[in-house]
């Protein structure tokens, strides 16, 4: 899952990185096929090159190794908002058929939630303004729901054309990477569709772990096995953590 996410990042891209798996994946990419990947954290560090994985988005190693450290209002206003960032990396507690993300509350009542989650953070504007969004989330029916309980960050809204109607400048979620495979929006319906499984995964497992009738691409692919260089770099990163 981390390797698949890392591979999705092309060299030289400017990548807005959240903490956790997105950060691991982005750092893995920087150590393997994408040495010129520009890592941008919402704490204001532009071009961070951490030697060890940060636990938080504001660890000292990010500021120490960055090309520039700017104030938080500037990172959102000058760098994210105008669409200068190629890829935004997001996690999710829930994600729905159209790639909308919930990180706010589980339950039917915002004011009386079943589970109160951390909230929006930078995600709504990352989802709106990055040229592309990649989502990393573990595959389970609890996470992959027909309709999110709360739209924290917009994917494709309720279907094709919604992003344009809302004036969102980025393309939206182009890849959803899970521990079972990869989902991509159908170019016609914008519905998330299983396009790849990881080696050895039965597509039925992904379908079963999805809370809506998951479409499976006719040309379903299999993601390549992680190579030895990728695995070695990943182990090194995770050991340092």
């Amino acid at each position, binding site marked *: 899952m981390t390797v698949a996410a890392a591979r999705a990042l092309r060299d030289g891209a400017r990548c807005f990185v959240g*903490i956790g798996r997105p950060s691991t994946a982005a750092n893995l990419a920087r150590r393997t096929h994408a040495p010129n990947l520009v890592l941008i954290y919402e704490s204001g560090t532009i071009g961070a090159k951490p030697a060890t994985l940060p*636990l938080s988005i504001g660890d*000292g190693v990010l500021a120490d190794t960055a090309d520039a450290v700017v104030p938080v209002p500037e990172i959102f206003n000058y760098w994210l908002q105008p669409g200068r960032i190629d890829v935004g990396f997001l996690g999710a507690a829930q994600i729905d058929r159209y790639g909308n993300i919930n990180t706010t509350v589980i339950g039917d009542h915002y004011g009386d939630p079943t589970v109160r989650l951390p909230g929006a*953070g930078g995600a709504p*504007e990352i989802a709106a303004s990055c040229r592309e969004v990649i989502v990393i989330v573990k595959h389970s029916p609890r996470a992959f729901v027909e309709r999110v309980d709360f739209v924290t960050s*917009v994917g494709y809204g309720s279907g094709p054309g919604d992003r344009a109607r809302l*004036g*969102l400048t980025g393309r939206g979620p182009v890849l959803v990477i899970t521990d079972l495979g990869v989902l991509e929006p159908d170019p016609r319906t914008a519905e998330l569709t299983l396009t790849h499984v990881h080696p050895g995964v039965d597509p039925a497992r992904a379908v079963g772990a999805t809370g809506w009738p998951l479409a499976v691409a006719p040309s379903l692919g299999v993601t390549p096995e992680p190579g030895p260089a990728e695995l070695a770099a990943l182990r090194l990163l995770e050991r340092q953590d």
Partner: protein
Amino acid sequence: MGVIASLPEAVTELVRDGATVALEGFTHLIPVAAGHEIIRQGRRDLTLVRMTPDIVYDQMIGAGCARKLVFSWAGNPGVGSLHRFRDAVQRGWPAPLEIEEHSHAGMANRYVAGASGLPFAVLRGYVGTDLPAHTATIKPITCPFTGEVLTAVPALNPDVGIVHAQRADRAGNVQLWGITGVHKEVVLASHRSLVTVEEVVDELDPRPGAVILPSWAVTYVAEVPGGAHPSYAMGYSERDNDYYQAWDAISRDREAFTAWLEEHVRSRVPAP
């Protein structure tokens, strides 16, 4: 202005029951010791403001200081949820917690508007999300030149803004560097302010990336070495990631939390 005082004196002078208080810090330079002093002084009914409420806000909420939280991301960074915050929102313990919820971009711009003496800020944000339906302080605004509809958020002007910084000189000029977050904005946006610092020095030698807050823009400065722990002060300390990870277990349980609070906060007296 920029009066050098002890932490208890400054908190007594600035923070009153019912006040709107922002203790800011984007992972770095979080004024944790000041938060503990507010708990020790038994303040109540505070409106707490912060982009990233983390452990110290979890502690203040669990200690019953807060009536309301204005925020954009309430979690234990890199670890998970804030259990005291959850308990307050989901079960009203120790007191119900009203919330006013934004995104980071919105909160950052609210501080910018506050620091700029403007009543509101404009951004591209929130559109299509469920936040505007639940947060009254998010409204549409139309560009008078292009007709485009954007989003407005009102200025934040806390009664008291509190941050931690690396150093101050004896005149009360403050210097900070590394990840500077919204430190300048929250101090300038607040009616009164407190900066806790690692040390007071004779002279502030220039540093790459340093932000200066002139003495006349700050109300109080208090020397509190280690005052950001378990957060850190670049050049002085490292982030105590173990503490953040340990907090998860302590905070899950009301009794464990209460015992921790008594031992580690309430019964401690800071150096004067």
